[in-house]
C-alpha cells in the first residue's frame, strides 16, 4: 500500500463523489436538448442535493431503525464501488479489497438494502417497488457478472485494476467476446440505473415505477444520500464501461504525468458517454414492466454468449 496508491485512491474517490452528480446532470441536460427542451442545467443535481440536505426529515410512523440506516449503507457501498473501479488510475490502494465479483456483490448489497427499506413502511408502493427491483436485479446481476467474467477471462484476473492494465496495455485488438459483453453491459447499465426502457427516472406512474416506488417515503437528508448514491452508482457503471471497453488513458502505476492526463481524458469520455446514453434513452420507449425479464434475459444471454465466444475463439 504505497503512499501514492493511497493518494490516488482518495483522489479518485473524491472525484467520483463530485463528478457523479455532474454526469447525471449532463445526461439529463443532453436528454433535454435531444427532446428540444431547454433543460435544468448541468448543475441541477447539485442544487437538488443541497436543498434536500437542508430540509427537515419526515419519517413514517411505522418506520424501523433499518429505514434510517439504509441511506448511509447505500452511500457507503457506493463509495466503495467508486473507489475500486479504476477511473483515473490503476494504482489504487483499496482495489485489492474487492475484485470484480465483489463489485457485483456491492451492487447486490445496495439493492437488497434499498429493497428492504422500501418494504419497511408497509405501503403498497414500497413492496411493489422492492419486488420489481429484485426482479430486475435477479437477472441483471448475473448479466453484469458475465460481462465482468468475459473480461477476467481475457486478462486472467478478476482484479479490476489488472483487467484495466491488461486491456489497456495490449495493442489494440477487437475481442469478439467483448462485443457481446458490451451489448450486455449496456443493457445492464440501463436496467440497473433505472433508466429507460426498464424504468423511467422522471416518472412517478404507479404502474411502471421501480426505483421511485422504493424511495417514496424518504425525504430530506436521507433522500439526498440516496439520490447521491444513485448518481454514484450510475457514475460507477459508466466508469466500469470505460474501464472495460475504452481503458486507454487511465493512469498506470505511480505515474504523475499520466494522472494529469487522465482527468481530462476521463471527463471527455464521460461527456461522450452521457450524450450516447441520452441518445439511447431518447430513441427507445419505456417497456411494459412484464417485458423487463425478457430484456434482462437477453442481456444475460449476451453475457453468456460473450463468455462462450471467448472459449470458442480463444479471444
Amino acid at each position, binding site marked *: 500500500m504505497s503512499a501514492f496508491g493511497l493518494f490516488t485512491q482518495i483522489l479518485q474517490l473524491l472525484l467520483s463523489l463530485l463528478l457523479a452528480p455532474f454526469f447525471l446532470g449532463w445526461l439529463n441536460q443532453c436528454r433535454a436538448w435531444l427532446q428540444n427542451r431547454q433543460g435544468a442545467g448541468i448543475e441541477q443535481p447539485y442544487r437538488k442535493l443541497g436543498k434536500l440536505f437542508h430540509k427537515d426529515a419526515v419519517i413514517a410512523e411505522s418506520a424501523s431503525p433499518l429505514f434510517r440506516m439504509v441511506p448511509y449503507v447505500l452511500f457507503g457501498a457506493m463509495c466503495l464501488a467508486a473507489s475500486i473501479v479504476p477511473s483515473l488510475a490503476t494504482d489504487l490502494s*483499496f482495489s485489492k*479489497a474487492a475484485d470484480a465479483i465483489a463489485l457485483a456483490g456491492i451492487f447486490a448489497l445496495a439493492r437488497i438494502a434499498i429493497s428492504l427499506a422500501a*418494504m419497511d413502511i408497509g405501503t403498497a408502493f414500497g413492496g411493489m417497488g422492492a419486488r420489481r427491483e429484485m426482479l430486475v436485479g435477479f437477472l441483471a446481476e448475473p448479466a453484469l457478472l458475465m460481462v465482468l467474467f468475459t473480461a477476467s477471462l481475457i486478462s486472467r484476473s478478476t482484479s479490476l485494476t489488472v483487467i484495466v492494465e491488461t486491456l489497456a496495455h495490449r495493442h489494440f485488438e477487437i475481442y469478439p467476446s467483448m462485443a457481446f459483453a458490451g451489448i450486455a453491459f449496456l443493457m445492464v447499465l440501463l436496467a440497473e440505473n433505472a433508466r429507460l426502457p426498464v424504468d423511467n427516472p422522471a416518472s412517478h406512474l404507479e404502474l411502471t415505477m421501480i426505483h421511485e416506488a422504493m424511495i417514496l417515503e424518504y425525504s430530506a437528508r436521507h433522500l439526498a444520500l440516496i439520490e447521491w448514491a444513485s448518481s454514484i452508482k450510475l457514475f460507477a457503471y459508466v466508469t466500469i464501461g470505460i474501464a472495460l471497453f475504452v481503458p486507454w488513458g487511465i493512469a498506470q502505476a505511480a505515474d504523475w504525468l499520466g494522472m494529469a492526463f487522465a482527468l481530462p481524458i476521463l471527463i471527455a469520455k464521460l461527456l461522450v458517454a452521457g450524450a450516447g446514453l441520452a441518445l439511447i434513452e431518447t430513441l427507445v420507449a419505456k417497456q411494459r414492466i412484464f417485458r423487463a425479464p425478457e430484456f434482462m434475459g437477453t442481456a444475460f444471454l449476451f453475457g453468456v454468449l460473450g463468455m462462450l465466444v471467448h472459449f470458442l475463439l480463444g479471444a
Partner: protein
Amino acid sequence: MNGLPMDLIVSAALFWIALGLVGLVAQKKPSFVRNAIFPLGALAGAIVAVSAFFSSGVETAVSFLGLPDLPFHLRLDSLSAFFLFILGSATFGISLYATGYFRNEEKHIGTLCLEYHVFLAAMTFVLLADDAFLFMVSWEAMALSSYFLVTTDHKIPEIRRAGFIYLLMAHVGAISILLYFGSMGGDYGFDAMRKTHLSGMQATFAFLLAFFGFGAKAGMLPLHVWLPEAHPAAPSPVSALMSGVMLKTAVYGLLRVLFDLLHMQVWWWGVVILATGLSTALFGAVFSAVQSDMKRLLAYSSVENIGIIFVGIGLTVIFKAYAMNSLAALALVATLYHCLNHAFFKSLLFLCTGSVLHATGERNLGKLGGLIHKMPWVAWTALIGSLAIAGLPPLNGFVSEWLLLQAFLFTPGLPHSYLNMLIPVAAAALVLTGAAAGYVMVKFYGIIFLGQPREEKLREAKSSGKWERAGFLWLAAGCVLLGLVPFFVIDHLAGVSNFLVGASLENRDWLFLAPISSERASYSPLLFLIVTLSAIGLAFIAVRRFYHGRVRREIPWNCGYPVWNARMQDTSEGFGQPIRQIFDPFFKVGRELPSPFDSKPRYSAKTEDKFWYWIYIPFGRAAEYFAGLFGKIQQGRILVYLLYNFVTLIVLLLIVQ
C-alpha cells in the same frame, strides 16, 4: 493412535447419549431437563468443535462393540474433523437456543431430549465411522432419531405424512449406500476399501450407488421431495440441525467416497454431479421464491445450497480427474467453506423462524409482518443471516460464493471442448442462483419482519428469552466472523484439501483472500468493511456536522393516497408472482381467487412441485398396480392354492429332469 481430540469427541458423543437418557428418566421435572441438560449438551458441542479444530493428523480407535469380526472402527482425520467442527459449532448455538425454545414442549420433553441428543451422537459417529457397519448404523440412527423429532407433533396429519416420506426416502437412500459398501469388494473396513482397486465399470457402478444414496439424504434433485416436507415439520431447533448439520453428513459421505474410498475420479462423474447440483440449485432457488410458508421457504433454500455444494464437488472431481490439483483444491475449499457457512446461516434463520412461530403461532408469511418492532433481537440477527445467505459481502455467504466463482473462472482450458463450454454456462447458472437467493431473502425478511403486522395478534408478539438470544448471537457472530476473517478457517482447510486432492491453497496473508495469487484475484472482507464503514461514518458525521438532525414522524406519504392499512402490502404470493410467471412451466399452481363481492377477499396461490407428478405419483401408482397384480395370487380358493403347489412341483420336477 488415540489422541486427546478423539477421546474428547467420543466422550462428548457418549455424554450426549447419557444426557438423553437422563432427560428421559427425569421427564417428570421438565424445567430441570431444559435448563440443565440442554446447556450441558451445548457445552459438549463446544467441546466437539474445539477438539475437532485442534486435532491434527489421523487418529484411529477400535471399539469393543460391533460385529464379531468387525468391531466398530473410529477414525478422526482432517475431513471428519472439519465436519465435526461444523457439527459442534452449530450445535453449540442450537442447543443453547433449544434450552429456551422447548419451554413450550414440556409435555414430551423426555422423549424429545432423548431423541435430540441421540441425533447429535449419531451424527458424530457418522463422521467418525471408519467401517461400513458403524457408518450404516449411525447413519440410520441419525435418520431414525430425526424422524422421531420431525413427528413430535404427530397429531397433525401433514406432519405424519412428512415424517413418512422423510424416513422412506432416507431408508431407500440408505439401502443404496449399503449396496455401495457391498460393491466395494468384500471387506467392510474403510481401510480395506482404500486398498481395493476397482475396475472402471465397477467403480462407476459404485459411484452411482453412493451418489444416489447420499444425494437422497442431501436433498438432491429429484430426490429432494422429503426435504421441504420434513424440515418445516420439525421443531425449529431440529429443523436447524437437520438443515444446518445433517445435510452436511451427506456431503461428507460423498466426499469420503469420492476422494478417499474410491480414490479415483472420472471426469464425467464430475459432470453428472455438477449438472445435478446446478439443476438442484436453480430449482431450489426458484421454488423457495414462491413459497408462502416461512419454514418451507428455508427448506427449499437448503435444497438450493446443497445444489451449490454439489456444484463445487462436481467441479472438484472434474479438476481432479484431469490432475489439476491446485484448482481442485480451490473448488474443494469453496465447497467445504460453503458447508460451514450454510450450517451457520441456515441454522440461524431456522431458529429465527422458531422464535417467530412461538411468538405468533404463524408459519404463513401472509399472516406475519412488522415483527422488527416487537422482536428486535430476532429481527436483527435474522437480518445478518438473510444477508449472509443471499451471498452479500462482507458476510460469510459471499466468501464461499466468491471462491467457487474463482474456481470456475480459472479453468485454464480443460482438455475436453464440451467441458470448456459447459463451465461458463454452469458459472452463469450458479450466478443466477445466487441472484435468486437475494430475491428470496428480501421476500423472507421483508415480509416477516418489515412493514406492518398483517394480523392483529402480531401486535402482542413477545421477544425471545435470554437462552434464545445466546443462540442467535453465537450463530450471527459466526456469520460475521466467517465473513470477515475467512483466512483462519481456510488455512485450516489446507489439511483437508491436501488429504483429499493432494494440494492446498497458497494463501499466506491473513488480511487478504487470494487463493491463487493476488494478481489474479484478491478479496479482503475486513478492508472492505473498514472502507465502507468509514465512508458511512464520515457521511454520517458530515451530515450531522453540517446539517441538523431533526426528524418528524408522520403517517407515510404513500403518493398521497389517503387510505393506508396492512392489507395493502404485498403478500408473499404477490412477492413471488414475477418468479412464478417467469418459471411458469416448472410449477403446478393452484390459485384461489376471491369473488368480486367478497368483503374480505383473500387471494392465495399454492405452488406444487411437479416432480411429485412426474416421478413419485407414477411410482406410487406402479406399486399400487403391481400390488393389485400380486394380490390376484391370493384369491381365496383353496383349490387354486393347491394348484399352485401342484404346478410348482411339476415345474420343478421338469427342471430336474
